[in-house]
């Protein structure tokens, strides 16, 4: 852990791979596992075990620690990290985006990257699927809904089509 100041979830840099709350929950679970490993190693050392098993840190947690320049020395650091990650999971703003097709991870990473650079640095994504949208996205923020789909544009252009049909019948 950084020695200079205590960590806070509001200052966390969230990696691009962490897209949704589920990913943050995975981070919490990995940190809890690491905390358990630290505790086990400490107990073994007290019991006089010759060699403690090597600590396993997942790839996602490693990336998170690297981006935030954090080093975990003992169980206390892990416990603090777990607490802050839980706060991050519960308090980060979530934007619901419904697509017309299945969204691949790479595309989602791009969307999240844009959201974090333009909207909120810790924004998380909740993804949905609705083929009826044809194309585009149906976006829901905590208080508003933005229908940016092709279906919406077609519906708004219905009057134009009606006028053209009337003109065709008259001509």
């Amino acid at each position, binding site marked *: 852990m950084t020695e200079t100041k205590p960590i806070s979830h509001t200052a966390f840099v969230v990696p691009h791979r962490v897209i949704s709350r589920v990913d943050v929950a995975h981070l919490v679970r990995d940190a809890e596992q690491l905390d358990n490993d630290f505790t086990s190693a400490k107990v073994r050392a007290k019991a006089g075990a010759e060699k403690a098993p090597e600590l396993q840190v997942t790839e996602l947690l490693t990336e998170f620690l690297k981006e935030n320049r954090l080093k975990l020395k003992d169980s206390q650091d892990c416990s603090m990290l777990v607490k802050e990650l839980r706060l991050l999971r519960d308090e980060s703003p979530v934007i619901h985006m419904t697509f017309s097709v299945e969204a*691949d991870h790479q595309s989602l990473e791009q969307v999240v990257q844009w959201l974090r650079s333009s*909207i909120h640095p810790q924004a998380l994504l909740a993804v949905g699927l609705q083929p009826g949208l*044809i*194309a585009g996205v149906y976006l829901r*923020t905590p208080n508003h809904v933005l229908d940016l789909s092709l*279906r919406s544009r077609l519906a708004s252009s219905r009057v134009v089509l009606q006028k053209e049909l009337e003109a065709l*019948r008259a001509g």
Partner: protein
Amino acid sequence: MAIFGHKKTTPKDEAADQISQVFDEEFREEMRAQGRLYFERVINENASLFKQDLDATVAHVNTELKQHMARQLDEQFAEIARSNATLRDHITKSLDEKFAEYGKTIEDAQNKALLTLSASTQTLQAQHQQLSASIQKTVADQEATLGVMAKKNEDRIKAMEEAQSAALQTLAASVQALQTQYHQLGELLQKGVVEQQAMLIGAFEKNMAIIVEHYVTAALGDQFDMKAQLPGIIQQMETNKQAIVDDMKL
């Protein structure tokens, strides 16, 4: 003994000594045995005599008892026979009395039944005569009524014929009126069809937009993959960026 003196003995003592020598212990034992045997023999003899007397007494008692029992039974049988005879006489007498009583009762009942039947037969004959008279009267009345009704029916038939002719005239008039209405209705229908046609065309034009929309949805639904859409999506979000940011700040 001789040294210290000699005791003088009397004849009584000598007689006692001699008695004790004759009736010594052995002699006494022999006498006791003889006495015992004699006593046993006497006892046995008396026992046999007593047994003989007892057997004779028992045989005599048996004989007496049998005779007594036979006498008692004979007396009882005679008593029962007497009682039976008395009872039979009594029952026979009672039955005769009862039979006589029943016979009399049945005869009375038969007489009464015959009297009742005679009375019923007379009543029935009277009722039959009354009924015949009544039917004859009713038939006569019915004939008279039928005559009146036939006349009335003739009058009604005449009235109905007149009504039918009037109805036919009315029907003819109605047919004419219906034809007129039919022509009017045809004109109205034609006008309605034209209006309906115009309305349907209007609805078609309105719904055509929805149909085209559905067609586009079905035709293009699977045509855009995520990678192709992504630049457009980000561009649209960029357009609405400020609205999103404002909402997140709320």
